[in-house]
Every structure is written in C-alpha cells, then in structure tokens.
C-alpha cells in the first residue's frame, strides 16, 4: 500500500493527467453537442363508452392515465409503432427507405427522445426532445396522434369482432324466443275450454310463460351488446378512451446542459481515475528499485543516514543558474 501511495506522490502530474484529460474530453463532448429543445403534449384518458366516465366516481383500481401510460410506454418499444410515429414526425428522417441500420438507429433515437408520464388520474403527459423546437413539437404531435389512432383501431377491431359475436347470439336468442312463444300459444289454444286438468294446466302455462320471459331477456341482452359494439364502430375516430387535451407545443429555449456537464465530469473523473489506477499498478508492478529507508530496513540492513536530494541533478541546476 505504501509503495502505491508513494508512486502517486512521486508522479502526481502523470497520474492526475488522465483525470484532467478525461474530464476535459467529456466536457468538450457535451459542449459540442447540438442544442436540444423540449416539446410536450397531454392526452385526456377515460373509460371507453358506453361505460360511465371515471371522473364522476373514484376507483380503487388503476387510473385511466396510469393504464394508458403503461400501454404507450410498451408501444414505444415496438418497431412498428415507432415507424408510424417516425413517418408522421419527420418522414425523411425516420423513413424506411434508407439503409436499415441507419433507420434502426433513427428509430431507437426517437424512442429515447420520448418520455411518458402522468399528470393525474386522467392526464397523460408526453414529453419529447428534438434538435429544433419544431422537431420536438412534431414528434410530440406524432406520438399523440399515432397513439390515439392505435387505441381507436384496437377499439374498432374489437367492436367489429364483438358485433359479429353478439349478432349470432341475438339470432339464437330470437329463435329461442320465437320457439318459446309458439309453445305457449299452442298450449293455450289446446287447453282453451278448460277441463279436468285444472291446476296442472296452470302450472304448465306458468312454466312456458317463464321460458318466454327468459328467452326475451337473453335476446334483449344480446341486442344491447350488439348495439354497444355498433356504437363503438359508428363513433368513428373518437372512442372516448383517449383524446387530445393540450396540443403539441415546444419551448423555444434550448434545454440546459448543466446536468449533462455534471454527469460528463463525473464520468470523466471516474474514467481518468481508472486509468491512473492502472498506471499506478503498472508503475509499482514494474518497479524493482529501492525507494527509501523502509525498503532497506525490510531486508534487515541498518540505515545510518538518509540524504535528501544531493548529487548531479542539483549540481546541474546550480550550474545552469
């Protein structure tokens, strides 16, 4: 340990130089980076129609904004979604016409430029970073529009499938209802004059009437579900789940670099220290010379005197002066 510390004090400049160079290089890199501007937009999130809006009653479950944030964050990892966003934001930059590797780089950079957060139970905030205020704003707008389209498309596709399903259920319920009604009518006509059956006849009528009521309820439910699905389809682009609340805007003032500079400086110090540490290891590892009285005493040789800095080095200096 002593030899390592001594090596540091013997070569302070040599060992501090990597730290200084690394800090200077990392700081210069940050300073030379182009300006970045921040854009943003917000979306209003609610439960899908025809369900009642969640703003009128609290829910212990996850808020709509939280749900949408999770979904949007997930989508930002998907290449297809990023491509759609890129095409809407800056087609020339994110288009798939160029080399694939370059397009991939651009898409990953795009994903890094978008941050999603919630401003409350219903407000979803989209923050973007861009080289110019316009680009940041375009990116926020593209993310917002692409996400809304994605949600609406999903809603519509699901509604289409549901409609087919509910219609088939409605047909079956309609047939069951017709059958039940026919049986009731037939039985009523057969026992119109009354007779010896008496009480037994009334029980059968009640049972048939109950069957008709059940079939009617099933039919009504299927009809209601089909109507809901139809409503979603007919509502066009607005599913009610997400809608634009604040349009995309961007700040004309570039993002401050202080934080980046601090991080770059810290990284530079760390990197430089690692280089210095390796240099010290190398210096001490290759050093086989006696460094002082301690080394001499370690091999059981008594030190009778220590003389500090005398000899040719100082003589030369003296002569030069």
């Amino acid at each position: 340990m002593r030899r390592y510390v001594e090596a540091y004090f013997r070569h302070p400049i040599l060992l501090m130089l990597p730290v200084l160079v690394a800090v200077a290089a990392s700081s210069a890199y940050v300073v030379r980076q182009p300006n970045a501007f921040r854009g943003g937009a917000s979306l209003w999130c609610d439960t899908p129609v025809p369900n009642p809006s969640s703003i009128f009653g609290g829910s212990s479950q996850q808020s709509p904004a939280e749900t949408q944030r999770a979904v949007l964050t997930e989508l930002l990892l998907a290449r297809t979604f990023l491509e759609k966003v890129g095409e809407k934001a800056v087609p020339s930059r994110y288009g798939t016409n160029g080399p694939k590797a370059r397009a991939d780089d651009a898409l990953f950079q795009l994903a890094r430029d978008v941050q999603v957060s919630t401003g409350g139970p219903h407000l979803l905030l989209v923050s973007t970073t861009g080289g110019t205020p316009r680009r940041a704003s375009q990116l926020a707008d593209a993310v917002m529009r692409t996400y809304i389209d994605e949600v609406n498309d999903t809603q519509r596709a699901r509604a289409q499938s549901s409609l087919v399903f509910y219609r088939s259920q409605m047909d079956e319920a309609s047939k069951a209802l017709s059958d039940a009604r026919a049986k009731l009518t037939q039985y009523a006509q057969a026992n119109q004059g009354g007779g010896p059956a008496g009480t037994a006849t009334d029980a059968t009528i009640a049972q048939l009437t109950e069957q008709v009521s059940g079939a009617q309820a099933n039919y009504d439910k299927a009809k209601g579900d089909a109507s809901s699905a139809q409503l979603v389809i007919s509502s066009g682009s607005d599913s009610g789940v997400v809608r634009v609340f604040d349009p995309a805007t961007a700040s004309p003032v570039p993002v401050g670099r202080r934080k980046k500079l601090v991080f770059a400086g810290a990284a530079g110090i760390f990197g430089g220290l690692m280089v210095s540490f390796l240099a010290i290891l190398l210096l001490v590892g290759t050093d086989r010379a006696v460094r002082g009285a301690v080394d001499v005493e370690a091999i059981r040789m008594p030190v009778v005197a220590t003389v500090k800095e005398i000899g040719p080095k100082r003589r030369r200096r003296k002569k030069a002066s």
Partner: protein
Amino acid sequence: MKAALSLTLSEAEAAPTSVKPRRRRRGITAVGAGDAKPTEKLDLRRTLLEANGSQWPRLTDECSSALELMGGPAVVGVTSCIRGEGRSTIAIAMALAQPYRYGTTVLLEADVEKPSLAATLELQQAPGVADVLEGASSLEETIQWTGESVGVVTAGSAGTDTSALLSRLLRRNLVGELRELADSVIVDLPPFVGPGVGMARACPRVVVVVRAGSTPLDRLERVAAELDHPPVIVNRADERLPPWLRRMFRTTS
C-alpha cells in the same frame, strides 16, 4: 535498530580513541603531491560549497552522524550496488566530517576504473594509487593534503590495464600503510560488482550507498547477503509523502 547496528558493526570497537599527533602532517601542508609544484592551500569545503551550494554542510552533518552510529571511523569503505549512486560524494563528505572528532583523515580512491575525485575536488589526477602500485612514487608523496586535515589519494594514472591494477591493489595493503600516516582512512571503493566485491570484503567496515529510485532491490539483497548486512546510507531519499501519511505507514508497519 541500534541493537542490530551494534552487532553488525562490532569492528567499531577497533576505532581509534585518541587523535594522532598533527605533526604527521608537518612538511606536507602544501597541497599537492610531493613532486608537484607547491600551490596555495586547497579549501575542500569552499570548493564543494561552490559546486554544490548550501546542501554540502547538511551532507557532512549527516555523514558525521552516520559515522558516529557506526562507532567512529578508522577504516571505512564506501561502496554501492551500481555506479552513479553518489558513492564518491558520500566518501568525500565522510572524509570532511571526520577531522573534527577523529583527527587526520585520508580519502583513498580505490575506484581506478572510473576515477572522479580529482575532477570533483579540483586536485591533480597523478600521482595516485596507480603510481604507487607501479612503484613510480611513494604513498606519502601521493597524499594531497587540504586545509581541513584531509588528505586525498587519487586513482592516479591508471592506464588501460585496470584489472591488473585492481588485483595488485588487493594484494598490497595500502589501507594499512595509510593508517600509519593518518588517524582514519575512508576508501572510495568501486561498485559491488566484479573486483569491487573482493575490495569491499577486504575492508574491515563497509557502508553501502543506496540511491532511492535507482538501486535495484535484488542487487542490494546480494550485498546484504555477502557483506552480512552492512549499514546503509540512503541517497536522494526524497520523501514525497506528507508527514502525517508517513507517520501512518510507520504505525501500520
């Protein structure tokens, strides 16, 4: 450490307790070899101060303390693991540090392969050790006395056959002869490799100069093993650690 030191430096007891009469110096107060033309007195301290600045007194103080720790001089060889560790500088400082307590001192340059004392101290290169060994001059004539009761015997004109010269140096007891002429002798030995190993072994006491950041640890371990853990002077022990950190490491170790 002091206990270890006293064990290691048992020869310290052989150190002189009384200062030899200064008359020995009489007749050769003029600096320079016997056959050299008389020159003005050399002031080693002034020469070194001009060359090294204010750090020289501090160095001699350190060396004086080191010699005291070693139990006083008599004969001390100064060696190092490799060249360029400040061996000659320490030897000069030791020679300068001695006269106050131990009387006259002769600094003998035994590193005939790469002599440096004459240039450093602005003395005459010859006659010196080589000339004595070849019989060209007497040992007494080669001593260049300075105003500090310090005599210096330089390597002399060694020529090219230094290995033969070194083996002759090993055979002849120059140090013993010098002890007859001075109270103590400091020998500036060659590095502890090749013939330097034998010369260091021939010295009754050896101190090793280690230059921080330069001396290989494995070479020092070899010196420790072969010379039975001799005392060490650490040169350029420039402690860069803050005092509180030094204290912490001392506590933890």
